[in-house]
């Protein structure tokens, strides 16, 4: 697969990426103090406020949060696919192998997007073009980015479909997206993301629209491929179960802030932020049958006009007066963890 592609690349003008010096000793992806704003009619909504994390090769990072907490916006900012305006990246860095992607020109970045970082979207049906066959859409990547001919591209598309376990791939390349079932469509999306052998995959709620049995299939496929290719995987989801099953570390987001970061085992055993703790407690559990669920009172705040101090304080069981005025910094906790709570020690020990 790779030899023919290298030959084909020669036909193309020099790739814009060849001028960029990636440092292979630097971490795969470092996001530092990322800030994104949306200019809306009601004012400026700070969708992402200082999110930082590091992703290494072969590692899976879970970004956990409710709708509107900024997890998808973070992903789109890393990919550089935010609609600007209304969105605007106002600060921070997104370093891939030591190079800040936010400083790149669009032409170079476009090549990073396919060759280095790829994304899997939630809704496969609306992410695929309904008027082209699946084979054409998969082959397009090779035609655009590797200068492959139509015939070559088609052959590659068949290979890809086989890799993600679609039966009778040779015939199915000629099918249109609507002819695939939900799970198969999501496999096509995975194939598309893997086409140019990127180092990082960002999966934004990849299984939310699927049934549990199909979700198990897709997650198993994704985990296998990741292990095989040593990919860095960012899994964005609100499902505490999926995250527990596959990730190495977790970043919990609330109202645009990364409120807690820790290793997956530690976070489930001893959450260090009241929000994480409350989320874990709100899952129905067997031993609580017949009792009331521990619900989080109130609603997530509006991003245009967030509460002062800690944005979680109106819903927090640990909140004191200080939380209403002082915005908590990211405290470093023992065991290489981080929590944005003034009273993290109390939360850890509760």
């Amino acid at each position: 697969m790779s030899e023919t592609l290298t030959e084909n690349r020669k036909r193309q003008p020099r790739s814009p990426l060849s001028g960029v010096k990636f440092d292979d000793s630097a971490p795969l992806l470092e996001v530092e103090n990322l800030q994104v704003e949306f200019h809306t009619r009601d004012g400026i909504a700070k969708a992402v406020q200082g999110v930082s994390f590091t992703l290494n090769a072969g590692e899976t990072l879970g970004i956990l949060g409710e709708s509107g907490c900024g997890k998808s916006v973070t992903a789109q900012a890393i990919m550089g696919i935010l609609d600007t305006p209304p969105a605007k990246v106002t600060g921070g860095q997104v370093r891939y192998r030591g190079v800040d992607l936010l400083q790149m020109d669009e032409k170079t970045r476009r090549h990073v997007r396919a060759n280095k970082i790829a994304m899997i979207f939630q809704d496969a049906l609306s992410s695929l073009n309904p008027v082209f066959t699946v084979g054409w859409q998969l082959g397009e990547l090779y035609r655009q980015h590797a200068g492959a001919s139509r015939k070559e591209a088609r052959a590659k598309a068949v290979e890809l479909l086989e890799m993600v376990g679609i039966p009778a791939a040779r015939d199915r390349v000629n099918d249109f997206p609507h002819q695939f079932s939900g799970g198969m469509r999501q496999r096509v999306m995975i194939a598309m993301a893997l086409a140019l052998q990127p180092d990082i995959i960002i999966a934004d709620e990849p299984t939310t629209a699927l049934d549990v049995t199909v979700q198990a299939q897709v997650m198993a496929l994704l985990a296998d491929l990741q292990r095989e290719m040593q990919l860095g995987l960012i899994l964005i989801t609100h499902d505490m179960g999926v995250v527990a099953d596959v990730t190495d570390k977790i970043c919990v987001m609330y109202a645009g802030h990364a409120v807690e970061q820790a290793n997956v085992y530690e976070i489930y055993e001893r959450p260090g932020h009241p929000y994480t703790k409350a989320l874990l407690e709100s899952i129905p559990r067997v031993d609580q049958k017949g009792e009331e669920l521990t619900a989080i009172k109130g609603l997530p705040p509006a991003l245009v006009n967030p509460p002062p101090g800690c944005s979680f304080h109106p819903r927090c069981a640990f909140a004191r007066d200080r939380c209403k005025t002082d915005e908590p910094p990211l405290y470093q906790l023992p065991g290489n963890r981080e929590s944005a709570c003034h009273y993290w020690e109390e939360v850890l020990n509760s």
Partner: protein
Amino acid sequence: MSTSVTESALAGGSTDDDVVLEVRDVKKHFPLTQGIVFKRTIGHVKAVDGVSLTLRRGETLGVVGESGCGKSTLGRLLMGLERPTDGSIKVLGQEMAGLDNKGMRKMRRNIQIVLQDPYSSLDPRMTVGDIVGEPYEVHPDVVKPKERRKAVQDLLDVVGLNPDHINRYPHQFSGGQRQRIGIARALALKPKIIVADEPVSALDVSVQAQVVNLFERLQDEFGLSYVFIAHDLSVVRHISDRVMVMYLGKAVETGDEHEIYDGPTHPYTQALLSAVPVPDPRLRGQRDQIVLEGDVPSPANPPSGCRFRTRCWMAQDICATEEPMLVNRDGSAHPSACHFAAERDVVHAVDNPSVIEGTTSDNV
């Protein structure tokens, strides 16, 4: 046939006085047509194909299954929103089939529905007061016109909304609050039964727990019976007394909540339960996970014999020829529609320390 066995098992052997809803072998086949001017029926989508259930006062029946298994159609049949092709539905002892519009309207006072999507099930041009009070327009004798506003405010209070918000519009509320409006509307006529069709699946986790708690509180307060349709197995486990698992229009296994979750005997139930990710990383790789292959077959052309056989790892020749009935079997203490029904422990209690410390979990 198997009906008598199923019946006694479903009713749990209690007297009939408590039964509020009785469904016998109900079917709904949607015709598939071809042609524009002269439509010919070329087949049927068998959305619901012979389902029986009994619901008693104050009880919650959970209905689970993947999308396309007919659980929502079943809910619509119970509400009389679809006319069944065959079978009988009795609400408080009264047969639904053959009722005219007037009779139907009267019957619906006893059974109400809460819909899945709190965004599209509320009219954006009506105020909350109009939405929740609309049942009183249809049934004017329930509450006098002068007292309606007060009645609506009481309902809003009951579901945990601010009664002063009666003049607001749906877009001014969040998803969880909208679902509360939907619940208030369903409660307006003081029904005995509420069919809840995926009432929490559109909500965020933190809000989901609030709405589940509300459902349980209302049940205690008003003695309601629920048919709780959902695909989230952990929510269903939390709220249900009994559970029915559906696959391709048929019930494949029914039983008490703990019978289904602790000792599932139908391979589909086992696969479904094992596919649910458990929110505990310590159980990673320790669970006995069954990954099913392929997709649900088309309900227009279901497989012969057992409908699950095309995806079943236990299928044998008999499964293709003989359809398994939903009855009590040797390997199963509760009704299971599998020739080879046998218990298998696939889900463990998250807080069961013996499981976490144990090295394997294949206690088949």
